[in-house]
Every structure is written in C-alpha cells, then in structure tokens.
C-alpha cells in the first residue's frame, strides 16, 4: 500500500476539523431538544440531522448533486419551500376567532413592534441593512416568514436565523409568561371578558382570504407571495369543496416540505459560517425581538384596557404574534392562573390569528424597505 492509498482511505479522519465537530455537536443538541424536550421536533430534528450530515468530513451530501444541496437549490434558494408550507398553514388556520373580533387586528399589528426595534438595534451593532432586517424578522416568531425574508436579504444568515426562529417558537411557553407577568398587575390579569359569539357566515369566511390577499397584495406587493399562499390554503379550507386539496396541503405537502426544508436549512450550518460571534449576536437579538414583541403586545393590550374602561385583559395583547396557536394557549394559561374560571382563549385566538397575518405583512414591509 502506498502512502497515497492510505491517505485516500483515511481521508475522512484527516479532514475532520474542530469546526465540523462543533457543528455535529450542535446538530446533536438540536436532535436532543427535539426528541427529549419536544421543541418543535418536526423542524429541529431534520435541521439537526441536516447539520450533522453536512458537517461530516468531505460529505458527499453537499456540493454538486449532493442531496442536501439539491434540496437547498430546489426549495430554499428560490423561496419555494416556505411558501408551500404557508399553503398548509393557511389550510390549518381557523380565522373565525379573528372574524368574530376584528379589533384584534390592532394587537396583531402591535405584536410586530419588536421586529422594527430589533432591526434598529442590529443596525447600531454594525450589521448591514439586509442582515439587520433578517435578524429583526425573527421577532415575527414565524419560521416560514423568517426563512423567506432572510433567504432573500441575507442567505448567509439563514441557518442561525431559522434555528433562532424555531427555537424561540418552541420556547413561547417559557419566554412569554415572565414578560407578561412583569408588565401586568394581578387585577389586570384577572379581567374577565365575556365571550362574544357571533355567527360568521360561510360567505364571510370565504371572502376573508380573497379580500385580504387583494388588499395586502395591493398595499404591500412584497408580501404577496406569503399572504397569497397563506390565504390560498385558507380559501381551500373554508370553501369546503376541495377537501382533498385542503387535506393534502395541510398533511402530505406540509410534511414533505417540512422534512426537505429542515434538512436543507441544516445543511447551511457549515462550521466556518456558523461559528462566528455574529451567530451569538443573532440568537441574542432574536430573543430580544421576541421579548419586545410580547412587551409591545401587552402594553398595547393595556392601552386597549384603558380605552375600553377596564374591560380588556391586557394579557391578550401578548398573543398578537405569529406562533399559532401556542401564544394564545399561553395567554389562556396565564389568565387561568389568576382565575381558573376566566376563559380568554377565544379572544387570544383572534389576536393570534391577526398576528399571523400581521407578521407576514411585516415581512413584506421589511422587504419593501430594503428594496428601496
């Protein structure tokens, strides 16, 4: 055996770098969080696996015709996958609570403040405009929107931003309650809100996605792909005539795309690109964006409480983010902690559904700002 044969046989070993080992460890950590903590396992497990597979020495999965690179090229580089996932989300989302309570739109808008505050902070910390906008969008707490926006503006930050967005989405029940408790009094948390049930006609339910698509599409053209897909899914759901398509979009399509998306995102987490101080800054800023969103939502809820003469539970403001329906559930849990027979869930769901639409619009606004 010649030396050359040896070096070829042992190429794997000799090409191990400390960065790749660290990234494999990061991948294992993500898989651990997915398996034992059930933190967004549907995404974090494929992302973790993608990170491991991409960081193995000389991995044939990345590069020309490598599985991971092919997945990235067909669906992440051109923004296809997040949009397909949005069709599934639309097919799963019931906008009924929002239609029953249209004023919740205000809370959805308030829940996006963190995005823009974080953007400014990231600019001050020296990130470029595109990077700062991509970091701010973590505050939408919306995976597909974050992937879509950062994929266009700052593809080199896709890995950390996606991991941050999905991790914080999983941490909604841990991150939100302290902020909510800090900003509200016991009396405010115990405010009861009568459930105002209004019959929403099927015609309204069908018109809603169409009107929103056309309205948002004209106002914020950059949001058209996201809102169009989200509302297409919702139109299919509410029309009740294409149940096979609705079912396929919310199950098979969403599941397959989630797997592909997770693997492709994981493969972007290369050692050299990921292991930089900037990654830590992104994670920290993303967390800040989330906290600011929650705070802004609760403070806006307090304002609505003052305006309504003490009849609005400010906790509901915290649900004005995109993490659906986790945010609304956390709000209900917090309200029930003060008063177990206080049910604000339906109001919170309305705010939460508004937050979902608003975060998409916010993504479009960011893209429009950066294009200008």
């Amino acid at each position, binding site marked *: 055996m010649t030396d050359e044969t040896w070096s070829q046989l042992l190429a794997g070993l000799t090409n191990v770098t400390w960065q790749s080992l660290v990234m494999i460890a990061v991948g294992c950590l993500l898989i651990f969080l997915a398996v034992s903590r059930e933190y967004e396992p549907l995404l974090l497990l494929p992302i973790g696996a993608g990170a491991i597979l991409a960081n193995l020495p000389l991995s044939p999965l990345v590069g020309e015709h490598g599985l991971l690179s092919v997945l990235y090229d067909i669906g992440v580089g051109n923004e296809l996958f997040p949009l397909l996932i949005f069709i599934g989300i639309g097919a799963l989302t*019931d906008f009924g609570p929002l239609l029953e309570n249209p004023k919740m739109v205000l809370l959805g808008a308030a829940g996006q403040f963190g995005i823009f505050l974080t953007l400014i902070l990231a600019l001050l910390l020296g990130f470029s405009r595109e990077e700062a906008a991509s970091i701010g969008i973590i505050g939408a707490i919306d995976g597909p929107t974050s992937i879509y926006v950062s994929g266009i503006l700052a593809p080199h930050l896709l890995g950390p931003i996606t991991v941050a967005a999905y991790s914080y989405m999983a941490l909604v029940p841990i991150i939100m309650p302290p902020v909510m408790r800090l900003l509200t009094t016991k009396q405010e948390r115990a405010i009861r809100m009568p*459930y105002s*049930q209004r019959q929403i006609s099927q015609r309204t339910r069908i018109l809603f996605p169409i009107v929103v698509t056309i309205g948002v599409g004209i106002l914020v053209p950059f949001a058209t792909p996201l809102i169009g897909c989200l509302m297409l899914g919702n139109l299919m759901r509410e029309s009740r005539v294409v149940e096979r398509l609705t079912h396929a979009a919310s199950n098979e399509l969403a599941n397959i795309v989630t797997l592909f998306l997770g693997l492709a995102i994981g493969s972007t987490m290369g050692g050299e690109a990921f292991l930089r101080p900037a990654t830590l800054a992104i994670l920290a800023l993303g967390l800040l964006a989330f906290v600011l969103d929650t705070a802004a939502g609760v403070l806006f809820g307090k304002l609505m409480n003052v305006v309504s003469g003490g009849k609005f539970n400010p906790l509901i403001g915290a649900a004005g983010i995109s993490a659906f*329906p986790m945010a609304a559930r956390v709000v209900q849990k917090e309200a029930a902690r003060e008063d177990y*027979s206080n*049910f604000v*869930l*339906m109001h919170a769901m309305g705010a939460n559904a508004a937050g979902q639409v608003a975060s998409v619009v916010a993504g479009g606004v960011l893209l429009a700002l950066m294009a200008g």
Partner: protein
Amino acid sequence: MRRYTVKINDIEHTLDVEETARDRFVVHLGDRLVDVTLVDHEDLAQAQIAPAVEIPSSTGTRPLPAAVPSGASRPAAATQPTVRPRSNGIGRNTVAAPMPGVVLSIEVAPGAVVTRGQLLLVLEAMKMKNDIRAERDGVIASVSVAPGDQVRHGDPMIAYEG
C-alpha cells in the same frame, strides 16, 4: 326574539327582546325600539325571588328567571334572560360552557360533593384542554353532557343541587 309580559303596578307591559349579537339586544317596548348593550351581568343568587306574575303557558312566554331580583332597576336586568338562553336562567346552579368546544372527560358524577376549585370536566376548545372547575362548593345534581359531546357557548353542562 323572546317576549316577556310583565305587570308593573297592575299595568301589563310586553317586552320583545331581540338578540342581535351576544351582547347587543333590541328591546321592543310598545312601539318604542331601544338598543341595549349588555355591559356586564351577574347572578344575584341571594336576592329574593318573587315571580309575581302567573304566566299563561299558551302565550309562549317564560317566567322571569330566578336570578332577576325583585325590584331590580338595572337596565341590564331586562336583557338578562337572554344572556344565558340555554342555561334555563339558573345561573349559579349551572355550569355552562364558557366557549364552544368538545367535552373530553367528565370528572364528577351526579351526587358527588365538590369543593370550590375542584375539576369538574375537561373541555377541548381550539385544540387546547381547558379545565372547568367548580366555582362554589356544592353537590352535583346532574351532568347533561358526555365525553365527545360538542357544546356551544352557554350550553349547560353540569347542574348543582339546591
């Protein structure tokens, strides 16, 4: 639309209460139309119950619910009967569904003695399990729902004795 025929100082009045939304009503009083918004309502269980009118069953009217205290002059009192249209107006003696959902499990049986805060049933709404707990001590008289039942807002689910 619900019609109440009440007698005040021997003069009979007919009130037609039309529910336009959960908290909004139109009250037809003679030829007057009054828009009523329900701001708040509570059941005053300790109040004296004085159903002074005998209701002829043929006219389709219902007795004023026990919860309306005699002599109550709050504007909300007129609309109170429609607030819990499906709870038979018993209020404090009934556990009504706080929101639409599906009954997942029932943790008490008729005859059970419950204390305030005790878990009565679990209601799944928007894919979230909600504990419905006893708001007072008491004895369960009847359970009118079964696991898997779909309930609407205000549907009576459990009744207390007494």
